[in-house]
């Protein structure tokens, strides 16, 4: 299984030694320890990418021994051989959980997230926690106390956000897969910018227990891997009802690996015109349209559809997500754990100084926005209205899915931008999510698959959106897209 990043595009300082595939390692359990060692070394060698914030040498060694013993005992361990990284807003017991924020810089979690628990129980080994935009708020992975994440394809550019570190950990071949969280595109955008596959599952498909909330009604744990097949392998293990998360769905996990193969029948593929509007870069549009035509020649039918409320997605998202965030983040007040301002003496000071010093500017901006839209006198005009429009957006998708099986769009209107380029312009930064946010608002699954590079050699992502719980179908189509892409490039 080859990396989708053409090797000639790797910067000179990237370590070239490839990680053996999970299958390879599973068949040679004695090699797992060496692979883990290499991954840790590689993560340190590539420290300047700022992908990792915590490396778990000792824990990974313990896990490795357990996996090796398990395999010897004949346990199934479907993910034995997988090396993983986990975004640092997902809890692992006795491991620090920073959310890339000063306010949690020295906080250690007392429990492990359900998704991580399930992956590890299936034999996967977590080697470290990855960098992100503080509390997952951002589209570039630059809002972090650990230094901006850099894109391995072009180190002067952003990795995309907010799960930038997890995207880079896979793109730079440090690990086979990684976990991110996607509230408005935080898995798909960095996947697209870094040239890897990234999946945001259906809302409720993967338990949120252990994911530090940004916008609970939108948050979903997602994953990165080099291939759609890899994402399917991870999803099968992570998905399914968890009694610790009330919003987790009763839908059973997707079927076994054996049944996963390229799609045999033809699909009706919808092209939502609103996603091909102004602001879309010519290179991106060309690449996406060329893939669409390949799919059509491959037997699928292409249908033009309309999602008329798309233009409201960004404002609706920034009202709802910030409203929820302003409440979730209230717990970080310096009273019980985490950072507390040393200047604070009075109770109100503890709150004001701790939160003023502990949160970064973007987080403070979103808390203020969210507090405002929930305030007496503004609630109806903002929050309630946004909820109404959210329902309209969902209806748009329901109508579209009555005509087509999936929707194809670019993941992002542009390829990766330069570090610092949009940092002082939050509105432009927010627009990076314009094509990914609607799937979160509707709670439906969406996948980003790399389909090539622009004229500067920067990766372009294709977004495949499906109806609720149609992960298997969109990942199958993703596999087909990968085949068409590699067939052409070879």
């Amino acid at each position, binding site marked *: 299984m080859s990396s989708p990043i053409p090797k000639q595009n790797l910067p000179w300082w990237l370590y070239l030694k490839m990680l053996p595939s999970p299958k390879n390692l599973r068949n040679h359990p004695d090699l797992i320890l060496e692979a883990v060692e290499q991954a840790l070394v590689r993560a340190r060698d590539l420290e300047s990418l700022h992908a990792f914030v915590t490396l778990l040498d000792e824990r990974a060694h313990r896990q490795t021994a357990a996996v090796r013993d398990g395999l010897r005992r004949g346990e199934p361990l479907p993910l034995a051989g997988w090396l993983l990284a986990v975004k640092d*807003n*997902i*809890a692992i017991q006795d491991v620090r*959980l920073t*959310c890339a924020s000063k306010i*949690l810089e020295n*906080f250690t*979690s*007392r*429990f492990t*997230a359900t998704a991580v628990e399930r992956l590890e129980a299936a034999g996967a080994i977590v080697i470290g926690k990855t960098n992100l935009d503080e509390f997952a708020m951002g589209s570039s992975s630059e809002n972090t106390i650990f230094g901006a994440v850099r894109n391995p394809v072009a180190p002067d550019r952003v990795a995309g956000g907010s799960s930038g570190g997890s995207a880079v950990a896979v793109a730079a071949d440090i690990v086979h897969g990684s976990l991110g969280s996607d509230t408005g595109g935080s898995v798909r955008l960095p996947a697209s910018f870094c040239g890897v596959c990234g999946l945001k599952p259906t809302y409720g498909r993967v338990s*949120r*227990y*252990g*994911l*530090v*909330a940004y*916008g*609970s*009604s939108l948050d979903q744990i997602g994953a990165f891997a080099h291939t759609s097949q890899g994402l399917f392998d991870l999803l099968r293990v992570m998905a399914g009802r968890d*009694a*610790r*998360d*009330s*919003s987790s769905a009763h839908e059973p996990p997707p079927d076994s690996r054996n049944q996963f193969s390229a799609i045999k029948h033809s699909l009706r593929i919808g092209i939502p015109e609103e996603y091909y509007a102004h602001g879309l870069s010519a290179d991106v549009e060309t690449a996406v349209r060329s893939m669409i035509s390949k799919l059509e020649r491959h037997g699928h039918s292409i249908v033009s559809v309309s999602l008329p409320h798309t233009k409201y997605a960004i404002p609706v998202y920034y009202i709802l997500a910030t*409203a*929820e965030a*302003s*409440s979730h*983040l*209230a*717990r*970080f*007040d310096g*009273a*019980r*754990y985490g950072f507390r301002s040393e200047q604070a003496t009075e*109770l*109100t000071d503890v*709150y004001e100084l701790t939160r003023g010093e502990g949160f970064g500017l973007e987080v403070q901006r979103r808390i203020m926005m969210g*507090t405002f839209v*929930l*305030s*007496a006198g503004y*609630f109806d005009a903002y*929050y309630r209205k946004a909820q109404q429009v959210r329902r309209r957006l969902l209806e748009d998708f329901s109508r579209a899915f009555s005509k087509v099986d999936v929707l194809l769009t670019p993941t992002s209107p542009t390829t990766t931008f330069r570090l610092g380029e949009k940092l002082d312009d939050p509105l432009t930064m927010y627009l990076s999510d314009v094509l990914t946010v609607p799937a979160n608002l509707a709670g439906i699954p969406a996948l980003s698959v790399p389909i090539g590079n622009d004229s500067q050699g920067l990766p372009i992502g294709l977004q495949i959106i499906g109806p609720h719980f149609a992960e298997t179908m969109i990942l199958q189509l993703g596999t087909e897209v990968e085949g068409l892409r590699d067939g052409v490039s070879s």
Partner: protein
Amino acid sequence: MTYELVIGLEIHAQLLTDTKAFCRCPNRYGEPPNTLTCPTCLGMPGALPVLNRNVVEQSALLALALNATIHPHSKFDRKNYFYPDLPKGYQISQFDEPFSSGGWQDVEGEWGMKRIRITRAHIEEDAGKSLHQDDGSTVVDMNRCGVPLVEIVTEPDFRSESEAAAFITAVRELLRYIRVCDGNMERGSLRCDVNISVRPLGQTALNERTEIKNLNSIRAVERGILCERERQIRIYESGGQVIRETLLWDEATEEIRPMRRKEGADDYRYFPEPDLVELTVSPEEIERYRDGLPELPNVRRKRYREQLHLHEEAVAVLSGDREQGDYFEALLRLGVDARTAAGWMQGEVRRALTSENRDMADFPLAPSALAELIQAVERSTISISVAKDVFRKMLTDGRSARAIIEAENLSQVSDESELRLIVERVLAENPDELAKYKSGKRNLMSFFMGQAMKATRGRANPNRLAELLQELLDTP
């Protein structure tokens, strides 16, 4: 000018579930601080709430007992505010779609019977406890965080402090009756906030109200209301205006003082709790809860009065205390006459409970055991005074009435020939008294009764004995 009081109440009742509302921590009072906590009730990052279904069951019983309508769909909301004993920075509560609404509860008093309308009863979680130390610092105990509460909100239907007190008493009785709250105001498992305003008698519009918190007993509620009534009247009399504010009752000084709070701090920014799904209760579930509801105190009271014709004191005790009432009902089912049963409950049973300082729930005798004893009296096997002795013995050694009566040979002597022999002996042994009787001292009858009883160690059937004595004394 004459003023009229207008009062509405908000009552918080802690439910008696085994675990907290949204996590599996035990719901217990009096444990060492911060020992009943977990990531969820401590608001640790990444932890999520999951509704304890027992909370729904107990809330449903309460809503039904208050004659309220349970809504098939309700939702949870977040009430946002900062305080050190509120670890998440918000309280999970219900705002615009409460669990139940539109109930009522009748209260009795010198005003007769009055129906108090209940606006709503909704589910929420309790906060932790801030403990202010002697050195001026404050520490927090999170054991109470996440304990389930039902908040009962009334319409402003009370016109006096006594009506309010009677309502709280009735609700407390109800809560204990259906076993969803222990009703302990001192410990705070039942808390009451009072909304109060005054207006000139005859005015229909409501004046501005204030809210009094920290009322830890029914007496405090009454005192607080009277105190605030005077304060508001003084303000109006001096031409001022009452402003809406929250006041605290100070138990030590019996004074109210304004709660120190920041201006504009009470915008709670309610919005739907995204970590919980909608709360649904099916019609079948509601029916099941309704079937599980016992006969309620008001209904029982009416029945005891109108059908069983018990006297008021017995009505009050047997309808007010579920355990005593149920015990009484069990005696009735075993065939004991209602007034006799009430007499035992009011007499020996109550004395036994008081002297041992016990609740009815811990009373050691099964209703059938007591019924056996009562029936022995009714069948004249033993006299009432012997029965009281047997009752005390049953309590101490646990034997049945029958076993005690047989082992100690206590059954009454009703046998005509045996009693006749005894009476003849008594008369023979007391010739002087007999002579006096014959000469007209008729009140010596009781002397002979006493002697005969003594001779039988109290076992003689008093009616038969009296008949025989009369017969033999009057024989010329």
